[in-house]
């Protein structure tokens, strides 16, 4: 951490990008969750995989996510310069040129796809390539600035990693991996709209049509609540179709109930400051929710496989 901060200070003095700036370009905070759900896909997939190749598969998902984040920052540098949340990113702060970010993102993306294809199989490699394409072209270039449904459709990009991990082991896309995809896909709207509710002035200034700026707070809160209910119900699909046990079911029920309660509380909160606080709470909770649900699914799966529960 000290190295990163120090490097940024130096690069601030010289106007040259340091190592920390290149790391910041990978959006490490977003990458953590992507890597985790990708790891869950690798672990829960039926079949065997050499541990070294499994590590490479997860690393490729991380590098691919980092590459697409760099390409996102390359394309969005104009609006990043306007929003307070993103003003200090390497390109808008002037420490790095757009071309540097573009080349870095392209190299990482190409490398991750090629390595995953060679190390595991080309279904996984192709899925990773499609994920990067979806995030950069479909979401960043096409949807983000055009429609308030941007993160609903664009959310698919963040939902692919468990499917990529699953395909790395099995070489196929099966129903179970589609269910994991669906859970993240439905989780994305409440997660990002909660953020947009308490950061909407930022998005408004940048001209990004996030849901609260287009349809207003009340409609957004209602949509958050509806999506949360559908998400909580969809999180029971692994139990319903018999590929998750008691541990997962209990965790999914409790966390789904809490998520729904927080979304309902947000829906009922009218006063502005309290509403922003409730939105922030929901946003933070949503991060924990996805981690806990996927962790429970992985634990349940491992315990079942090793015979403790059957």
């Amino acid at each position, binding site marked *: 951490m000290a190295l990163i901060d120090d*490097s940024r200070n*130096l*690069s601030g*003095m*010289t106007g040259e*990008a*340091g*190592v920390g700036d*290149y790391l910041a370009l990978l959006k490490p905070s977003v990458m953590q969750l992507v890597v985790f759900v990708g790891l869950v896909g690798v672990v829960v997939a039926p079949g065997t995989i050499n541990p070294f190749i499994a590590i*490479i598969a997860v690393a490729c998902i991380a590098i691919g996510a980092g590459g697409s984040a760099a390409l996102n920052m390359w394309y969005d540098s104009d609006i990043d310069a306007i929003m307070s949340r993103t003003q200090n990113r390497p390109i808008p702060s002037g420490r790095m040129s757009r071309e540097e970010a573009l080349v870095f993102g392209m190299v990482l993306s190409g490398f991750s796809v090629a390595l995953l294809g060679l190390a595991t199989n080309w279904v996984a490699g192709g899925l990773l390539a499609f994920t990067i394409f979806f995030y950069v072209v479909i979401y960043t270039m096409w949807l983000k600035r055009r429609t308030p449904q941007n993160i609903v459709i664009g959310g698919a990009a963040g939902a692919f990693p468990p499917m990529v991990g699953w395909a790395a082991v099995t070489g196929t896309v099966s129903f179970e991996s589609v269910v994991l995809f669906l859970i993240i896909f439905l989780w994305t709207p409440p997660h990002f709209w909660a953020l947009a509710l308490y950061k909407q002035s930022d998005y408004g200034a940048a001209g990004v049509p996030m849901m609260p700026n287009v349809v207003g707070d009340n409609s957004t809160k209602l949509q958050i609540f509806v999506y949360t209910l559908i998400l909580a119900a969809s999180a029971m699909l692994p139990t319903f179709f018999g590929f998750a046990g008691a541990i997962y079911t209990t965790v999914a029920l409790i966390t789904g109930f809490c998520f729904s309660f927080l979304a309902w509380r947000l829906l009922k909160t009218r006063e502005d400051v309290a509403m922003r606080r409730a939105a922030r709470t929901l946003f933070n909770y949503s991060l924990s929710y996805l981690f806990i649900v996927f962790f429970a699914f992985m634990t349940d799966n491992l315990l079942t496989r090793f015979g403790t529960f059957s």
Partner: protein
Amino acid sequence: MSSPNEIRAVEPESPQVAEARKRVRRRRSIALAIALALFAVTFYTLTIVKMGPALFDRAM
């Protein structure tokens, strides 16, 4: 006629900035070297892993 900005642009950078620039570039070079070394080790190990036990299965 040159503007004051243009005159400033050709001024030599201070020793502190030159030193800082050198350190930034050195750190970047080290990071790149580490990345290239990891790349080589990864592909070498991957090749061995992909060959599997057949690596040692050859006629004497």
